[in-house]
C-alpha cells in the first residue's frame, strides 16, 4: 500500500514537472542591441518564439560633453504599427554634468505590447555631445501558450480533428521505365537493365536466405522430434526387457541335486588317433607359400 502511494506521488510529481517544463512562461534577455551601432532592427535583436513580451529595457552608456553643454540622449523604439515611438527614455545631461560620466538604467516597459509593434531602435543625441560604449538589452517574457495549440496542456487548446487519409492506388503511379514515349539511350537502357538484374539478384538472395532459414528451422525441429522418438523407443525396449525377464525367470524351477560320484559314460574304443593326410598336405602347402613370400622380398 505504501509503495503504491509512493508511486502515485512520484507520478503526480513527474507529471506536474513535465507540465511546468513545457508551458510555464520563461524569461530571457537579448544581446547588446547597440553593439553594431546606435540604431538597430528589432527583427535581428529579438528571438523568434511567439508570445514574447518585453518587460524591461536595460541600457548604459558614457556621455562625452563639455561641462557647460546641455545634451539630451534618447534611447527609443519606433512604433511599427503607427507613428512616433512605442518606447522612449530621455536622459537630460544638464550644464554642470561632467563628460565621461556613465549612466546605467533599468526602465520597466508597459506589459503586453505586441511584438509586432516594436519598430527599429536607436540612440539619438540632441546637443553638442556624443555617446560611447552604449549597451542596450531587452529583457522579455515568453508565454509558450500564447498560441493555445502549442501544447495540449495550454488553456484553450482544441484537439485537432484527425486528418483524412487519402487512399491511393500505387499501380496508378507513373513509371518512366514503362513509358513507351520515353526514349532511353543504349547506355541508359543497359544501366536500367543492370539495375533490374541487381534488384532481381538481391531478391533471389533474400529468397535463398529465407529458404535457408526455414530449412535450418525444420532441421532443428526434426532433431527435437528424433530425440523424443529415441527416448520413447528406449522406454519401450526397457519395458519389453523387464517383461521378458519375468518370463525367463518363470522357466526356472528349484531342484535338488543328490551328492556322490558321477563317472564318464562315454568310452574311447581306438587306442591311437592318426593325423589327417589332407591336413598335413594343406599345412605343407601353406608353409611353402610362406617361405616363397619371404624370399621374394630379398630378390630386389
Amino acid at each position, binding site marked *: 500500500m505504501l509503495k503504491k502511494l509512493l508511486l502515485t506521488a512520484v507520478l503526480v510529481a513527474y507529471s506536474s514537472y513535465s507540465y511546468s517544463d513545457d508551458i510555464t512562461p520563461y524569461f530571457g534577455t537579448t544581446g547588446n542591441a547597440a553593439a553594431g551601432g546606435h540604431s538597430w532592427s528589432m527583427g535581428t535583436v529579438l528571438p523568434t518564439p511567439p508570445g514574447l513580451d518585453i518587460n524591461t529595457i536595460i541600457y*548604459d552608456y558614457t*556621455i562625452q560633453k563639455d*561641462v557647460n553643454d546641455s545634451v539630451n*540622449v534618447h534611447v527609443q523604439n519606433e512604433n511599427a504599427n503607427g507613428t512616433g515611438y512605442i518606447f522612449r527614455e*530621455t*536622459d*537630460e*545631461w*544638464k550644464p*554642470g*554634468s*561632467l563628460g565621461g*560620466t*556613465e*549612466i*546605467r*538604467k*533599468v526602465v520597466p516597459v508597459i506589459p503586453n505590447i505586441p511584438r509586432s509593434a516594436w519598430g527599429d531602435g536607436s540612440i539619438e543625441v540632441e546637443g553638442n555631445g556624443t555617446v560611447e560604449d552604449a549597451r542596450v538589452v531587452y529583457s522579455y517574457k515568453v508565454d509558450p501558450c500564447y498560441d493555445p495549440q502549442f501544447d495540449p496542456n495550454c488553456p484553450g487548446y482544441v484537439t485537432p480533428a484527425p486528418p483524412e487519409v487519402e487512399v491511393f492506388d500505387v499501380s496508378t503511379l507513373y513509371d518512366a521505365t514503362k513509358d513507351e514515349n520515353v526514349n532511353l539511350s543504349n547506355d541508359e537502357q543497359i544501366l536500367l537493365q543492370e539495375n533490374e538484374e541487381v534488384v532481381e539478384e538481391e531478391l533471389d538472395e533474400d529468397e535463398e536466405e529465407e529458404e535457408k532459414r526455414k530449412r535450418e528451422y525444420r532441421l532443428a525441429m526434426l532433431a527435437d522430434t528424433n530425440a523424443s522418438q529415441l527416448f520413447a523407443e528406449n522406454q519401450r525396449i526397457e519395458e519389453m526387457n523387464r517383461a521378458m525377464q519375468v518370463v525367463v525367470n518363470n522357466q526356472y524351477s528349484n531342484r535338488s541335486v543328490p551328492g556322490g560320484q558321477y563317472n564318464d559314460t562315454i568310452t574311447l574304443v581306438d587306442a591311437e588317433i592318426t593325423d589327417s593326410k589332407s591336413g598335413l598336405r594343406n599345412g605343407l602347402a601353406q608353409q611353402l607359400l610362406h617361405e616363397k613370400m619371404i624370399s621374394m622380398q630379398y630378390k630386389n
Partner: protein
Amino acid sequence: MIKNILLASAFIFTSVTAFAVDVPISGTVQSRCVISVDTPGVYGNPNAYTLTTTPADGGVKPIVRFDVTLADAYYAQITTPSSFSSSPSLNDSVTWTGSTSVSAISDATNMSAYETNKTTFGDTTQYDLTATGSTWFESSSTATNGGNRAFPGGSYTAVVEAVCVAQ
C-alpha cells in the same frame, strides 16, 4: 471576622498591582540607503616606493554603489585611506593621496550634477543624494613611501570608508 479582613486586604492588594503594567512599543526603521561594494580595489606597484590604484599602473579603482529610495534625505560620505589596515612593518612614513568621483548614475536628469556639487574635506568627499536611484562612486588612492624608500615586501591592505549619513 479575621478571615473577612484578610480577604478584603487581598482584594485591595491585587487590584493595586494590576494597574502597574509596562506596555512595550516596538518598531522597525527600514533603511532607505543601501551601500554595496561594486568593485574591490587593487594596488598596483609601478615602482618600489609607490602603491596606487591607477589602472595604468596596474591598479584597480574601488567602486561603491549607493542605492537610495528616498530623495533629499541622505549624504554619501566616502573617505579614502590615510593608513594601511594591514601591512608589513613600515620603514618610513607614508604619504597618502586620494580622491572620489561619480562613476555612473541611474538618472541623468536628476543626478548629473552630483559631481559638480560635491564637497571635499580632508580625505572625505560628500555628495548630496538629491534623487532616488543608484549612484556609483569611484575612488583612487596612492601611497608613497617616505624618501622614496622601497616598501618592505608583503601584503598591503587599505580601506575606503563609505557612509550614508542622514540629513
